[in-house]
């Protein structure tokens, strides 16, 4: 089963997402900010990263940029409470594969995860 890295500064949120993903059989690793997340991504080589946007230190925008710059090739799914269309555009422009809005909802999260991992494998 695929390995997913969840990056969110909220432990509450990490717990919610992890439980939904683990229930589906995914292997989940977590990180509390972009900096830690990048280190985990290098070490664990996950199949997908689900990343929050607003975080102290290295935020989601910077994380997506770093992944792209370092050519990690891992798809990044942005998961944010910010529902602005402009935010969505910025994330896709930066190289995020998709953007979902909080709160977590397994009916939208699981298909989006499958889609992201599927398209990454094809690429």
């Amino acid at each position, binding site marked *: 089963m695929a390995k997913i890295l969840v990056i969110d500064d*909220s432990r*509450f949120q990490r717990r919610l997402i992890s439980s*939904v993903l683990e229930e589906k059989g995914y292997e989940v690793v977590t990180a509390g900010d972009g900096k830690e997340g990048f280190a985990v991504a290098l070490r664990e080589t996950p199949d997908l990263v689900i990343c929050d946007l607003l975080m102290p230190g290295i935020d989601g925008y910077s994380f997506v940029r770093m992944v792209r710059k370092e050519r990690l090739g891992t798809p990044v799914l942005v998961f944010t409470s910010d529902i602005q269309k402009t935010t969505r555009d910025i994330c896709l422009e930066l190289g995020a594969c998709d953007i979902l*809005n909080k709160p977590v909802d397994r009916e939208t999260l699981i298909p989006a995860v499958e889609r992201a991992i599927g398209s990454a494998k094809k690429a």
Partner: protein
Amino acid sequence: MNVGEESIDAIRELINIGVGRAAGLLNDMTGTHIRLHVPEVRVLRYSDLAGEQRLLDSAHLSAVTLRFAGSFSGMSMLIFPEKGAAVLIMALTGEEIDEPELDALRIETLNEVGNIVNNAVMGSITNVLGERLTYSMPEYREGRIEDILGRERSPGYDWVILAVSQFMIEDLRVVGTILMIFEIGALDTLIEKITAVMGSPP
């Protein structure tokens, strides 16, 4: 009651969700991108609220309040320094005037901004609570923090969640404070729910 870091983390995230949703609505309405920041969240006693220097900074505060009742009762409130409120409204409406001033129409507009934020934050919280509450109409108040809170002499107020949110609209930085004032027992109800949700995902 001791409010643990874990609960504060969850409350911060719920408020974040509300603010993010409100920003999205405001963006839809105005076409202006709003840069958000992680809100700073603290939980304190209602009796300590008036001593909050950050809120007392301005003698002219503008606030939009929303009262709620049910299994979970209290009041949600979005507060801006008066100048900040006028700047925010003008940034959102794209008006160009020299002297920020709140007139009847702008107060109404601020009322809507407050309504959007309060409703979004309450929506985020009731989503976790899974309970239906009853609400008052949004109400606009202004003055010092004591004046704004003054009408709420209810001895039933107990805990307060104080969230300081920063919005950047173009080059303008607007700092708003979200206050959630809970009647006795309400915060416990919320924390219980949060704990339950963390244990069993949706």
